[in-house]
């Protein structure tokens, strides 16, 4: 530990705000909903102290809209919500994808569907994070397993959103959000903070969606800087104005998808634990991965060759890594607090090579190491 790091005891939701402010977040719009509420509360306390702005909007839809407006005006912006609030944000989340507006959306998942289990943990929004809004669209979603990682991945979420001009979802769960852990806050100079690329100075005709050769992400001006550009959620050409031309529509969507697909290596974050000689691989993320890690240790103590693959990047799906994993082990067990959402993707990629089992729990209680251990013995 270098002398300029700070050690703190911090809650997951608090670490999220600290990470966001470190990443440069200067605008937060939100609407309170359990179990994400502390993110709004702490943002309201912290932001004016760093010259940033907080606003409690009238609903979740308005919050997402205000975040997009502020980002287009040059501020790094974030909103936070849970389950039903996340559903409400989806239309404008699609708008941010289409108009390529960087922003971070935190979803501290809670039991569902509908108002479901408000204060209970769940990982039930994996598919909503990917496909919640309508139409084909790119998305990045990250899922932290500890308070420290919440801090780190919130910064990463801002970095990705700025770099690729996409909305990035921080897909948390209630356990991580409300847990308190020791966290080392690194010196900001040791961190990599990415800001959106600006258009070249003195540009006469700025086309907000024009990309130069071999580039997939257009530079981004802010309202008020003198370019007077137009932004719409309609299919648009490089000038930003609507177009019904089928070639333009197809090229735009391809570029939007490609900017994620062609950079998948840079976005793929994961951890492997005791996987080298493993015969059985657990796949788990978020708080569930912590129980899975303990279960691996139980099994190893008894000589069973079990390891853990822990995705931090939930979307885009870590296809290459899971495919490779499926060739090395005899069995994959996907553990998650839902009815098998991530397991579907694992099956899609891995089931031709290996038997994929799933273990889900959706009663508002977290999955314990013992339960996973018992399931491993069973399979």
């Amino acid at each position, binding site marked *: 530990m270098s002398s300029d790091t700070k050690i703190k005891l911090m809650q997951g939701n608090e670490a999220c705000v600290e990470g966001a402010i470190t990443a440069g977040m200067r605008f937060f719009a939100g609407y309170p909903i359990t179990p994400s509420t502390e993110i709004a509360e702490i943002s309201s306390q912290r932001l*004016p102290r760093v010259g940033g702005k907080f606003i409690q*909007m009238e609903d979740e839809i*308005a919050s997402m809209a205000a975040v997009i*407006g*502020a980002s287009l*005006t040059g501020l790094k912006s974030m909103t936070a919500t849970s389950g039903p609030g996340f559903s409400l944000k989806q239309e404008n989340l699609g708008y941010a994808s289409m108009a390529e507006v960087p922003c971070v959306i935190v979803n501290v998942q809670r039991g569902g569907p509908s108002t479901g289990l408000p204060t209970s943990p769940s990982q039930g929004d994996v598919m909503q994070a990917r496909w919640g809004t309508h139409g084909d669209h790119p998305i990045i979603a990250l899922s932290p397993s500890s308070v420290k990682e919440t801090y780190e991945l919130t910064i990463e979420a801002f970095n990705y959103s700025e770099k690729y001009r996409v909305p990035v979802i921080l897909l948390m769960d209630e356990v991580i959000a409300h847990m308190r852990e020791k966290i080392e806050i690194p010196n900001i100079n040791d961190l990599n903070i990415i800001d959106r690329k600006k258009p070249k100075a003195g540009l006469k005709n700025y086309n907000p969606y024009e990309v130069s050769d071999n580039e997939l992400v257009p530079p981004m001006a802010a*309202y*008020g800087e003198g370019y*007077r550009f137009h932004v*719409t959620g309609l299919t648009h050409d490089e000038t930003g104005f609507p177009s019904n031309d089928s070639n333009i529509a197809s090229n735009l969507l391809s570029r939007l998808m490609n900017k994620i697909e062609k950079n998948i290596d840079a976005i793929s974050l994961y951890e492997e634990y005791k996987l080298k000689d493993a015969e059985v691989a657990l796949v788990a993320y978020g708080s569930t991965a912590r129980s899975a890690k303990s279960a691996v240790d139980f099994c190893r103590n008894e000589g069973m060759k079990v390891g853990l693959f822990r995705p931090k990047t939930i979307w885009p799906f870590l296809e290459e890594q899971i495919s490779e994993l499926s060739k090395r082990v005899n069995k994959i067990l996907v553990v998650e607090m839902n009815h098998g959402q991530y397991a579907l993707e694992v099956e899609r990629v891995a089931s031709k090579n290996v038997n994929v089992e799933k273990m889900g729990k959706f009663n508002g209680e977290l999955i314990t190491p013992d339960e996973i251990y018992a399931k491993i013995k069973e399979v």
Partner: protein
Amino acid sequence: MTQTSELVKKYFRVDKLPHIWCPGCGHGILMRATVKAIDNLGLDKDKVCIVSGIGCSSRAPGYMDFNTLHTTHGRALAFATGIKMANPELEVIVITGDGDSAAIGGNHLIHAARRNINITTIVFNNNIYGMTGGQYSPTTPTGDRGTTAPYGNIDKNFDLCNLTKAAGATYVGRATAYHANLLTKLVEKGIENKGFSFVEAVSVCPTYYGRKNKKGDSVEMMKFLKNNAINIKAAEKMSNEKLMGKFLIGEFHNSQEPEYTSQYQKIIDMFQKER
């Protein structure tokens, strides 16, 4: 006085014209009156941001050479709130429709008014959902027909000026496509007001509202506006009998209240002093 042709050259994206509105639609007049107000005030084009939602009215920003944003249905004011908060130096103007602002966006309208955030909202009110083909809106007069009110609309229509005044807007006015000069004046005063300004601009829609309700062509509909609009000051001296079936135009409300972004700036300044 600036001629229309000069206004077009100065403030419109000429390559995006002609506009998509139907022949006889009042929206072009309302858009011109808005631009005229901006010209009269001599605003810096780079510092003006025009935001709209979805619908006929909401295509206006595309034609106007400012910072422009065409958002999702009903959400223009929420996007605009983010813009104004992020950069309070921008003059933020929202152009929205009766469906956009009063139905799907009704909640955002009352809350933007309540906050008294310095945004000028102009509702191009054509009393109908035009872009989707003539369904009744929250301002369609009771009894009138729309494609979704084939037997006559039983909803009571909204008085948006009374609504926004009650919600906390500090400047409220109404004019019509016929009273375009009054509209320019109201928009000017709305922009100058340091707070939430609401201007209802009554339009004409001969294609859907007019035809469905046998209101005649655009000229007939403009005559209706001319003959039935009473200035709020003149109305004060008129009997209830004489006011039957008429509607009011003019300046409804003008007051001073603390503005939202400057109130927030005070909180930021408090911490800057501490340092």
